[in-house]
């Protein structure tokens, strides 16, 4: 499994890539592997301001459904529409084509509570 070192990770298995004030968010390689084949990603929160660790959507896999938790407080500004046609991107390329939303980060301080790749690997026991 792959955990890029330039990302921050949450206990709920989301990753965030920070560029300026914007964060791109998805689920980790570990999470997509646990969920199995993903059928679709359901996000109805575009335009909403969502609190840290609150649910911003759900991901439906063949076998199960799981909530998605926002790793930092922020306003959801964009959903990856590519996932509607190709939800399997989350399985195949979780850090690239499988990204889920972009957020305007409310407070950069939230990032301090997240894990780096090495700490996250320990968290999941790999």
């Amino acid at each position, binding site marked *: 499994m792959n955990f890029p070192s330039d990302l921050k990770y949450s206990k709920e298995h989301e990753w965030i890539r920070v560029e300026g004030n914007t964060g791109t968010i998805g689920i980790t390689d570990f999470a997509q*592997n*646990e969920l*199995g*084949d993903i*059928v*679709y990603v*359901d996000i109805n929160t575009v335009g909403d301001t969502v609190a840290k660790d609150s649910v911003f959507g*759900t991901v*439906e896999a*063949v*076998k*199960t*459904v799981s909530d998605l938790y926002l790793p930092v407080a922020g306003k959801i500004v964009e959903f990856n529409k590519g996932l509607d046609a190709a939800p399997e991107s989350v*399985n195949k390329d979780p850090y690239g084509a499988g990204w889920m939303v972009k957020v305007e980060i409310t407070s950069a301080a939230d990032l301090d509570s997240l894990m780096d790749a090495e700490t996250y690997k320990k968290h999941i026991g790999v």
Partner: protein
Amino acid sequence: MQNTSLTHVHQSLGAKMVPFAGFNMPVSYAGITQEHNAVRNSVGVFDVSHMGEFILSGPKALDLIQLVTTNDASKLTDGKVQYSCMTNDQGGIVDDLLVYRISAEKYYLVVNASNIEKDWNWISQHNSFGVEMKNVSADTSLLAVQGPDAIKALQKLTDADLSAIPYYAFAIGTFAGIADVIISNTGYTGSGGFELYVKNEDAEKLWYAVFEAGNEFGIQPCGLGCRDTLRLEKAFCLYGNDINDTTSPIEAGLGWITKFTKPFVHSDYHKQLKETGVKKKLVGIEMVDRGIPRQHYKIKDAAGNEIGEVTSGTQSPTLNKAIGLGYVKTEFSAPGSEVYIDIRNALVKAKVVKTPFL
């Protein structure tokens, strides 16, 4: 937690393992969809050694089976298999099972892993016939080799003519050099194939022989994940989901294995249900709007009144649709009926459809 004789093989293949009915079982190897497609299009292999097996023998074995099971086992002949269920004395189902007739006085019962102890106790409790009962569950391994290419792959491993074994029939013969294998034309996938019962010590030899024989067909190890999607497309009931201690076989659409040609445990109740009509029925559900029905989701009418509950659901890999099974009030059970699934407090449109889905 128990291992099967093949757990270490699954782990070495990198399978994702889950606890299921007290066993450490593979849920998937390459991914549910890929494994599902292998079974539909070529061939896949399931280790289902967690299943339970009982041998009932003696001059009154049939009498005991007739009492505890709903199907008419007197219709069986040597080498034939019957799908059946056992009813409790409260209107529900103890388990569903397969009944194999080895000879007129010897039967082989195959039950769900989660119910082995319950079934054993239940049958024992009704054994006033002096039938000899033997629980061979812990000594028996079972591979289900399923898919359209299964017969071609497996025929290489035996002199028994597999094409001469019809659906729901079996032979006992030498297979992959292993003596006394039960070679059964059964399965839980709806794609054809065979189930092979062997002693634990032969399981690994059988596994590797089957994979070698199936190599040219792209044979794939398959986990419980795709076992569920495969059976659901065919609307085969899963005990614990679609049938349980409180559901009647008549409500579950299992009237075809519930024969009132003979009495069985609590048969009067089910006969009356059949005659007077049931209040709820197990039906097929297909989503109209986006959503996947999952076990325990409520089924509602357009006004939001609860009319039933989903018992199984998934995204069908073959049909690329979200499908499920659930009990609804009888007045909503006709195919075409509009129903709504309560998915996280949103009513998502669905419809009742005929089963099987595929």
